[in-house]
């Protein structure tokens, strides 16, 4: 296992090959990626062995506010290069939120109309953000979840196939490729090659597949671990319980070393803890990632655990995530940790 260099957080800025904050850009698309890596230190104080650290890649710092900016930029780039997306076409997809926001943003920046199919119970904030980028929203039955949105989207395309370009994040290899080309190298660089465990939630599985694949090319011993909802009935927006879902075509279970099940309520409690202990307001998928990262890190004698926080929390303030936050106390964090 790689040892951790205590100096890797002090790498000179020149070692970073990409433009940092403050660089001039021609398009919002140029601002995607190169997100910060934050050590989660206050919340983990006294909980981990001295040689173990946890870092979170803060994808909420992308211009569209989530990790999905990366996959969407790549899928649109590949669509344009292949000719499948060309002037006159409308970009369409099924999405419960962040991919929709990213598609709406990228479509707007490039001048393409966007239509998005989503279950009608996605958060108000997301619907409004998407509308603000000028995209059209089509609602599907909330009882059918994201699988219902996928099927409804297929129906719309079948009616007028020539009209649409569907990036199809679940089956488009450009999705994991974006992470192979950007997220993976960034994490490798930001940890000075010290990363030993990579943990990400699985929705489409693009982040986990692409980043994991890249990291394994640098060090085959790096463990690639999926954080997954513990049950089919869950409230972890953005994540999929694979055994009970339509399995994405880009998902290859044989490329994962391990899966860590996460209870929805534990992830919600972790979101409250990150806000009140770490000064970081994130969404529930970040809470789930942190629960899984802590579980793995607590088993280690030495290691550099990196996880992905897919977005920030401001989009969820009106959602179920915040039911019960007033009852949260640091004691709940202690109980959660005892359970891990």
């Amino acid at each position, binding site marked *: 296992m790689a040892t951790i260099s205590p100096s890797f957080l002090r790498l000179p800025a020149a070692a970073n090959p990409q433009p940092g904050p403050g660089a001039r850009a021609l398009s919002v698309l140029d601002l995607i990626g190169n997100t910060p890596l934050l050590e989660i230190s206050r919340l983990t104080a006294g909980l981990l062995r001295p040689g173990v650290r946890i870092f979170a890649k803060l994808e909420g710092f992308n211009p569209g506010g989530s990790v999905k900016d990366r996959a969407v930029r790549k899928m649109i780039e590949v669509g344009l290069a292949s000719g499948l997306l060309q002037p006159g076409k409308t970009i369409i997809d099924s999405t419960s939120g962040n991919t929709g926001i990213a598609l709406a943003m990228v479509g707007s920046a490039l001048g393409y109309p966007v239509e998005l199919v989503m279950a009608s119970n996605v958060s108000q904030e997301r619907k409004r953000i998407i509308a603000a980028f000028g995209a059209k929203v089509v609602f599907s039955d909330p*009882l059918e*979840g994201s699988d219902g949105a996928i099927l409804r989207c297929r129906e719309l395309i079948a009616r007028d196939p020539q009209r649409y370009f569907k990036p199809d994040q679940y089956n488009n290899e450009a999705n994991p490729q974006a992470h192979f080309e950007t997220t993976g190298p960034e994490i490798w660089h930001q940890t000075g090659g010290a990363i030993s465990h990579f943990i990400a939630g699985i929705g489409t599985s693009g982040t986990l597949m692409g980043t994991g694949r890249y990291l394994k090319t640098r060090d085959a011993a790096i463990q690639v671990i999926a954080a997954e909802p513990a049950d089919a009935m869950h409230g972890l927006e953005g994540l999929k319980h694979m055994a009970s879902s339509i399995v994405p075509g880009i998902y290859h279970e044989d490329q994962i070393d391990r899966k860590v099940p996460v209870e929805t309520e534990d992830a919600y409690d972790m979101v409250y803890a990150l806000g009140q202990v770490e000064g970081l307001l994130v969404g529930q998928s970040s809470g789930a990632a942190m629960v899984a990262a802590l579980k793995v890190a607590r088993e280690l004698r030495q290691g550099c655990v990196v996880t992905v926080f897919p977005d920030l929390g401001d989009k969820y303030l009106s959602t179920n995530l915040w039911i019960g936050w007033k009852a949260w106390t640091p004691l709940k964090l202690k109980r959660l940790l005892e359970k891990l």
Partner: protein
Amino acid sequence: MPVRVRVPTPLRKFTAGAGEIGAAGANLKDVIEDLERNHPGLRERLLDENGQIRRFVNIYLNGDDVRFLDQLNSPVKDGDDISIVPAIAGGR
């Protein structure tokens, strides 16, 4: 069938695949107990260890979120329509 209950996909393994089932009870709590008798495992998916509706579960009585009614004590009458909806599920 006094009350009609709409069941989301992730819970249909408890209802032999049915998306709609019948149940009885004077209030929501009774209805959930009745569901549990006929479809064991459902209650635990809906209620937490303190017997409260799980944070990520939304239950609608005739279209109204029961959190804005009387929660589990919301009265239920014949012909009412109950929908169980997960806060959200699935890929983004």
